């Protein structure tokens, strides 16, 4: 069992007390999540996730694409990895710490500083009545321990520059004053404030306009290459997954049907469901065949 005693800390304001830096980044081990509905007399159960296992290495940051249609369980899996809901059985281990052993506000804060989400709808991800810089400053305060307006703004500006924006463009703005692309980038910047090791992105570009999409997709690539962040990229779009990810995991009805290097799996699918998905992808070449 993993001990939670403080370990020698890294320099800087944040302490890596509970997390070992040299074990697997993330290990999902036989995780199942079962929901039951119904009343006292007749309950039905269904497994949103059924016996899913995979792991991410710490040494080499990668983009893992989880591909599935609606009902495949990919969103539930994301929420389990983010420690928002607990699995019915199986364990999730992040850097050597079992997620079920994280208790208390301090423990949760520390976990969140390492693992951050990106949401699908950039307009819903911000409170429409509040300014967007507020989330950046809060992250700077809670995760990095910075105090004072100047320090918050410096940290926010640093994070925004990493995504191609600047504090000047975003400061004091409300969500409706920014485009979907800018909002999504601000979300990513906010996630980067705490220098996380893992980002879980749930369909991050599906609600972003086509002309803005590629810049965000390329941004994820640079997060992996330059900032060394691992990304779990959830999507239903095989073409984007081919373009961006190192590995893919195909899910159907809660089960993993195929997994492997992205180019291999998508060019030569072995499982019939993967083949079906691959075949259903629309492409601009179809214009010639009609």
């Amino acid at each position, binding site marked *: 069992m993993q001990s939670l005693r403080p370990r020698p800390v890294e320099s800087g304001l944040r302490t890596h007390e509970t997390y070992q830096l040299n074990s697997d980044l993330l290990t999902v081990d036989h995780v199942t999540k079962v929901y039951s509905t119904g009343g006292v007399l007749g309950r039905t159960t269904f497994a949103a996730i059924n016996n899913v296992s995979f792991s991410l290495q710490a040494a080499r940051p990668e983009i893992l694409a989880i591909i599935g*249609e*609606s009902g495949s369980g990919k969103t539930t899996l994301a929420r389990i990895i983010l420690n928002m809901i607990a699995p019915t059985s199986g364990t999730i281990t992040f850097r050597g710490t079992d997620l079920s052993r994280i208790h208390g506000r301090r423990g949760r804060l520390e976990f969140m500083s390492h693992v951050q989400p990106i949401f699908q709808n950039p307009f819903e991800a911000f409170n429409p009545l509040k300014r967007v810089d507020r989330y950046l400053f809060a992250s700077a305060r809670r995760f990095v321990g910075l105090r004072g307006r100047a320090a918050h703004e410096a940290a926010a500006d640093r994070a925004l520059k990493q995504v191609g924006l600047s504090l000047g463009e975003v400061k004091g703005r409300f969500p409706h004053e920014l*485009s*979907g*692309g*800018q909002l999504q980038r601000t979300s990513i910047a906010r996630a980067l404030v705490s220098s996380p090791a893992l980002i879980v992105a749930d369909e991050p570009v599906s609600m972003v*306009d*086509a*002309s*803005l*999409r*590629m*810049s965000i*997709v*390329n941004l994820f690539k640079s997060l992996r290459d330059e900032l060394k962040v691992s990304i779990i990229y959830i999507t*239903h*779009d*095989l*073409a*984007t997954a*081919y*373009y961006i990810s190192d590995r893919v995991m195909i899910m159907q009805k809660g089960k993993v049907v195929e997994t492997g290097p992205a*180019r291999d799996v*998508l*060019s030569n699918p072995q499982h019939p469901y993967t083949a*079906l*998905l*691959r*075949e*259903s*992808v*629309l*492409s*601009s*070449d*179809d*214009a*010639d065949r*009609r």
Partner: protein
Amino acid sequence: MEAALLVENLRAYYLMRYFGIVREVRAVDDISIEVQRNEIYGLAGESSSGKTTFIKTIAAAIRPPLKVASGRIKYGFLDRDIYDLSPEALSAIRWKHLSYITQGSMNVLNPIRRVRQSFLDFAFRHIIRSKREFFKIVDGHLARLHLAPSVLSAYPHELSGGMRQRVAIALATICRPEFIIADEPTTALDVVVQKSVLRMIREAQQEFGSSMIFVTHDLTVHANIADRLGIMYAGRIVEEAPTREIFHNPMHPYTAHLVASLPRIGDATLKKALSGAPPSLADPPGGCRFHPRCPLAMDICRQVHPALTTLAANHRVACYAASPLVKPGAELAPAPGGIRAANP
């Protein structure tokens, strides 16, 4: 041959007054298109391009604060502008001559009644027979579209999303309308289902010979369904050509970027991104609305917007950089405060 739909210089604006703040949103700014008979015309555009306002306007389904500022909308099956119809006449053509397919099938099917009731609600007053004969026609129609007649007795929530959308398509085509407006009908569907629903729409259109405007932001869907494609940006059409032409020879920089940035399986080369963001329709940039983001912007682009000019066969572009034949467009007179309100 007369066009199925002729739109001339259509302008539709939102005029909003709220607590002393006046805002004019030019959602549809001088659009002219022509949809031929038996043709699927694809309309591509991002979320703020005004395409949704455009189809609402041509369906005469607008309400204040949205008003038609100027322009003409002439369907082939009508002898006058659609906004000149009385409310009764408008209601008589709806569904019989002009129908629509929406993005969410639950926006069309009554969730607390069985599917057969929706067919009665929509189509019975146009197909004037006895109820038994009516349902025989419906059964025949469903059979031609390869749908089991048992869907009629189901509730909408008992059907899958794809099945519901197929039912919505059957519903939209039952009266054999001359014109169908499809608004993102496959966007909410799963990838696997999307392909088969698209096929069904194509077959239905070919079988019944309706003309269609198909609106979606997804260019790959257009590749699969549209005969001709119009690209909308910030309330204007910037390029229009047969679908193959758009993909192989896009002349407008915006179209070129959209086509080039489509990810494809088998192609992992880095794709360039476009800077900036689509402009707000309440405060669009002067001149060509794309100029702040355009890599080819010239001085004239900032001053006067280019006119949509026919360059090659059936290929229209509004871009000075695409060809010297493209001239400045007419100066748009300030819109009067809404000369036509909507029909209630």
